[in-house]
């Protein structure tokens, strides 16, 4: 027993070195798998406040672009207003819905919340954005994030009280389903950590006619993203000789360098969908067992 204490005292520094290393590596590897780290929510409250201060200055450098984007968005929305349309058929009459508010809350599928990006990176292999809305404002994990233009940006992976972390599409672990606007065929968006302007769309089979400049939108099979939101345009078509699929380079519609205002989109039916999926799996498993 005495020898053990002597040993510990003699190698105290080395042992504490090993302990510190172990803690660090444990944090690193658990975080990579689950994206929730020890004390992260406490820490991101602090970093969030510092990032907000920095962002106040940084904002001025992107005002012009952001303004243009918002104007563009307003333009497309104004065009949808009913007074733009003239009804020529007199047998029909225009009925304006008298319910001013959405009373059919049950049938609403997507809820949009605005948020402000306070920290952003494009330079590493794992890029995150920090936004100034958190659990207290109703942000939950797995909500989709789009920029002020309505172009896909990423998915919320972690929330604290007033801030949340968004895994950008520019993250080597990011997997988002997207489809070709023209044909509706869907594949998976990945990033190869090469350039912040391009992401890769995999899983589109080679018998589909794809051209450069084709639009890629979010898929209707996604649990997070509403269907039909802009992702980007195809910049380069490579066919993977090993498989029957294309390897499409997509130029992202969102300019990741200068994202300021974003929308966080909640799929209100997500839990129900996930529950159904899980229940189905369970049911099939049980049936397999009983028939055996």
């Amino acid at each position: 027993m005495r020898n053990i204490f002597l040993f510990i005292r003699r190698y105290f520094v080395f042992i504490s070195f090993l302990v510190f290393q172990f803690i660090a590596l444990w944090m690193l590897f658990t975080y990579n798998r689950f994206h929730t780290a020890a004390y992260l929510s406490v820490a991101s409250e602090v970093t969030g406040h510092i990032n907000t201060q920095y962002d106040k200055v940084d904002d001025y450098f992107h005002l012009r672009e952001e303004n243009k984007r918002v104007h563009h968005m307003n333009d497309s929305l104004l065009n949808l207003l009913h007074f733009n349309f003239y009804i020529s058929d007199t047998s029909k009459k225009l009925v304006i819905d008298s319910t001013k508010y959405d009373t059919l809350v049950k049938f609403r599928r997507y809820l949009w919340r605005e948020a402000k990006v306070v920290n952003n990176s494009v330079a590493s292999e794992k890029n995150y954005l920090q936004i100034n809305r958190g659990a207290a404002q109703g942000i939950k994990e797995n909500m989709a994030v789009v920029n002020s233009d309505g172009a896909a940006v990423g998915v919320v992976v972690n929330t604290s009280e007033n801030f949340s972390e968004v895994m950008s599409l520019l993250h080597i672990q990011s997997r988002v389903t997207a489809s070709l606007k023209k044909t509706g065929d869907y594949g998976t968006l990945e990033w190869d950590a090469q350039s912040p302007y391009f992401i890769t769309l995999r899983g589109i089979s080679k018998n589909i006619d794809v051209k450069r400049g084709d639009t890629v939108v979010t898929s209707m099979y996604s649990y997070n993203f509403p269907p039909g939101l802009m992702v980007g345009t195809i910049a380069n078509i490579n066919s993977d000789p090993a498989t029957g699929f294309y390897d499409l380079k997509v130029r992202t519609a969102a300019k990741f360098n200068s994202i300021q205002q974003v929308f966080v989109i909640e799929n209100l039916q997500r839990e129900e969908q996930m529950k159904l999926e899980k229940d189905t799996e369970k049911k099939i498993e049980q049936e397999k067992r009983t028939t055996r």
Partner: protein
Amino acid sequence: MSDLIRNIFRLIIFILVQAFVLNKIPHLHRFIVPYLYYLFILWLPFSTPRFALLAIGFVTGLALDYFTMTPGLHTAACVLIAYVRPFIINVLTPKEFTEFNYREPSPRGMGWAPYTVYVLILTLLHHTYLVFLEWLDFGTFLSFLIKVISTTAISMLLILTVELLFPRRLKYRTNTV
């Protein structure tokens, strides 16, 4: 200003500069990330106990990690260089002096050549370990090598520039405290 307060200020400045200047500037190439923050560990006084060095290394790395959202990555590298630091200093100390004349490692106190070697070894160690951990879940061996070499080169350039631009006013170590 006491050592403690001075070093707390240094830590804050180094972390903020790393997180908001060096990580934000558009990179020349995706391999090159300019790292400077670990210079804080290299500048700690000679008299820092070894356990305290490890603890400070841990805190430094963790502080940056929470800004870059990579908990554990920089922490592991910082703890490693904090552990190795005393050995390197022992090797590079001129044998005829039993005590250091200055409080912290600096080019003026140690001489330019030993100081550069000291910085180079720890920089290489820090970057190799850091890039190795990144490489474990992503990348090829070639990109690993290029990344280690290029980040080390740019870090050395930054550190030497900092040493030339901000010469630290060093107090001579005296018996009258």
